């Protein structure tokens, strides 16, 4: 019924392409400012390549391990518990750039919130598979899934990192829906979450300001709406083919942190509509092949694992690409595989490794 296949080469190539493309863009976006501040224009590129190597190793290890081993409760809860513990630990460290999001590790910093994304995918897949296969009712997983997701979200909201928290919730919702949860549950969840969201939005000045800037970007183009406005200008100025690799004007002063969350704006400016669409297409390939692996997966756990890992990548990408176009309020969500950031890159590659792992197995389906 199940047979072992070679892993999905198309998916692998897409992931590698995204990663290498990210390195090129990180260098282009950061060389000037890195050279100016640290004297080493390769500073961010070198760190990203190092993270890529680590991420590749992790992905390879994940890929070569029988995925059923990941279904063992001690792995599932261990991964989740460890990531969550690290995220809590970060809360008690002195803030960096106003947030308690990172744990310094010598030359680099660990962002537990990123690892928690993968751990949460694992945990949700485990829960959903168990409830739907053993108990026969996926909706029994509703409460535990919601509980673990909200717990993780609560921790990162305190950091504060509303973007990542939102990512957890969306991830949970997507998986629950895939598992077959009925629409009304999402309605109830939304009703429950709305007041929380409103309270969070109004409790922090910068969030309120960002929201207002999103609703009225013209009101204060150089204040809160600055990033959004400059990001739009960067993308828009790219035209069909962009002004060439390294030709971005915006990255110099106007777009803060162009190599992290707003890297896609630089892609749009330097490589134009053609480059932007090519990158969007890469994510399309990842989504297509990831969901293909999920559909063909031999068991529910593998299916939810592949679907969850795919969702983790695609949801983040969609949010990031929307933020760059000012279609969504500014959030701290990186573009997976592309944005600068070691934790995000490693987490993304682990997710990629999980999908590739699942893609090796296929159940021959008979049409009903």
């Amino acid at each position: 019924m199940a047979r072992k296949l070679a892993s999905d080469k198309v998916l692998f190539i897409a992931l590698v392409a995204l990663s290498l493309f990210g390195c090129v863009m990180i260098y282009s976006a950061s060389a000037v400012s890195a050279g100016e501040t640290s004297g080493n224009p390769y500073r961010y590129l070198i760190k990203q390549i190092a993270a890529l190597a680590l991420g590749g190793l992790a992905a390879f290890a994940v890929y070569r391990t029988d995925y059923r081993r990941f279904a063992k409760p001690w792995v599932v809860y261990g991964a989740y518990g460890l990531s969550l513990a690290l995220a809590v630990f970060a809360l008690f460290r002195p803030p960096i750039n106003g947030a308690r999001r990172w744990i310094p590790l010598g030359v680099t910093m660990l962002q537990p919130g990123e690892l928690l994304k993968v751990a949460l995918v694992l945990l949700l897949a485990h829960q959903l598979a168990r409830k739907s296969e053993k108990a026969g009712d996926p909706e029994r997983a509703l409460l535990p899934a919601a509980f673990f997701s909200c717990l993780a979200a609560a921790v990162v909201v305190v950091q504060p990192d509303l973007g990542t928290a939102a990512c957890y919730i969306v991830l949970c919702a997507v998986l629950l829906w895939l598992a077959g949860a009925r629409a009304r549950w999402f309605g109830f969840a939304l009703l429950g979450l709305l007041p929380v969201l409103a309270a969070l939005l109004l409790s922090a000045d910068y969030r309120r300001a960002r929201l207002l800037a999103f609703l009225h970007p013209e009101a204060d183009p150089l204040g809160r709406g600055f990033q959004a406005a400059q990001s739009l200008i960067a993308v828009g100025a790219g035209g069909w083919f962009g002004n060439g690799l390294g030709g971005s004007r915006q990255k110099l002063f106007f777009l803060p942190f162009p190599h992290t969350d707003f890297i896609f704006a630089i892609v749009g400016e330097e490589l134009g509509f053609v480059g932007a669409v090519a990158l969007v297409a890469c994510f399309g390939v990842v989504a297509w092949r990831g969901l293909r692996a999920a559909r063909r997966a031999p068991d529910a756990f593998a299916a939810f694992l592949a679907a969850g890992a795919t969702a983790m990548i695609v949801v983040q990408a969609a949010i990031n690409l929307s933020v760059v176009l000012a279609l969504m309020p500014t959030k701290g969500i990186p573009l997976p595989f592309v944005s600068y950031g070691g934790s995000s890159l490693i987490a993304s590659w682990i997710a990629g490794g999980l999908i590739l792992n699942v893609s090796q197995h296929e159940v021959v389906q008979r049409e009903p």
Partner: protein
Amino acid sequence: MLRIREDRQAVARRIEIARVAVGAMLSLLAVAYWTVQIVRGDYYFSLSENNRIRAVKITAPRGYVLDRQGVPLVENEPAYTLHLYRREAKDLDASVAFIVDLLGLNPEAVRSRVERGRRDPEFVPIPIAENLGIEEVAAVQARAAEHPEFAITVSQRRLYKHAGAAAHALGYLSEATPEQIKNSNNAYGVGDWIGQKGVEAAYERLLAGVSGERRVIVDSHGREVAEEARLEATPGQNLFLTLDAKLQDVAEEYFKDKVGSVVALDPRTGEILALVSSPSYDPNWFTRRVTAAEWNGLLENPDRPLQNRAIQNMYSPGSVIKPFLAYGALARGLVDPEWRVFCPGHATFYGREFHCHKKGGHGSVNLRDAIKESCDVYFYTLGQKLGVDRIHEILTGFGFGTPTGVDLAFEKAGLVPSEEWARTKRGARWYPSETISVAIGQGPLLVTSMQIARGLAALLEGGRLPTPHLFYSSQDPRTGAQLRYKAEFVDGPGIAPEKLAIVKNGMWAVVNEPGGTAYGSRAQGIEMGGKTGTAQVVGHDTTIKADADKSRLDTHAWFAGFAPVSDPQIVVVVFVENGGHGNLAAAPLAKALVEARFGTGAPAAAPPVPSVRAAATDRQGVARATRRETP
């Protein structure tokens, strides 16, 4: 198993839906990017083109200049400029008419400024009027609501508190020249003010401070909308000068209607207490952007107001040089103090007749009396004994022939002739008869007032030459920390006190004994010594030929004095161009300055100073007499 398969079917169905949903979402995103990059691409491209970070200089407040007691000489004042913002104007003609009417401006001038400004991009404001008064500023502000197109900007402008006073010591500011900008290593740009001449130039770095910078974000219209970064300016140091405003005032007042210079300094340190060059100019002209008429007036004035006569103009010293030669001859043992010369009013040397300024002659005079009465025949004879090369040695020892090193630019070196100089520089051999002229401070010998002051200070203070200076101290306006100038000296001839005493006694007698050439200028309550000089005119600059302009042939009047005689604390050198006799035209100011310095209790105003005109007839005679001596 069936149940599970059904579930798996359901999941598979939802995965298919998800694939479609993701495809749709990514397609929508692509469409969104197409809209932004292609449909509205030109719009964003133009925004990007206009996105600029502009560096705006923060000019550091320039340090004040004060006298030694802290009397402000130069400060900064706010200057108001009226600008027109074209973007805000609905009807330019109406705006111009309004402002012309409100401020009573010249309509033609305003219109031409607006025309000129039209060539600039629209966001560049057009300057309409500078240096508005407070009432004008208020009038514009009051109508600001109706006429938002007019705006007033404030900047700091240099204010010289006493118009032309000490102008040559202070200097002035002007916009940096292209040359200065090139040499400044990016410290100055077009439109930046920089010190020209005087201490404004000499201590430019100290006074100017270090400018800061704001990096501002300008929008696509070029307007400043936000500040990205800011580096504060370091204010300039306040500069305390050695000048004494009280003495300076006395000297300025005296020179109101005369041409010449005054140098008063402390012989112990070289601190310049007063420095006047007349005619002067108002340094404020330059900060108010000197008009063409004013500038031409300055340039074409034959008396050259921009020149600092105390250091830039060289003159024959006349009899003022005599004490130096007298001391030099005594110190070298060439003459005995009681060596006597009989003066019949004239004498013949090398087959040429030389006149004494006293036609009837002084009779038999020794060294002291020769100084006191300024007997020319005595010094002719002394000069013959010395010879030009020894005279050269003595005078260069007292610093003549080299710049004093005063902290002002463009100082001249003067000229002390010698046989070698005649042979190599002049190209005509030295005539012994020229030595006779040099012995009374005529001939090719040329000095500056500053050199005489320094030489006299060296003579009185043990032979080392104090470097004259205006820098007293600098003060950091934020911390109050002061930096004090330490007096500098150049090695000089070394002085034998008993021989100096004889010369000093002669100089005391000049002022304090009946028959002394400056007996009329005795100071009240304090003993002043000195030496008068009446120099034949040989032209303004290095030219040795007499000036051809007949109206400028009157002799120059000199007086070099010091006080108190027992312990000199001030040296005063007064020079009045074409002023006639030193005793009448120059000595009275020295007396007034000494009295002002030591506060005699008597009113500082001197007894009526004989007018230059009254002495004119006498002067003509002397000028004729002396001119005949020159070969």
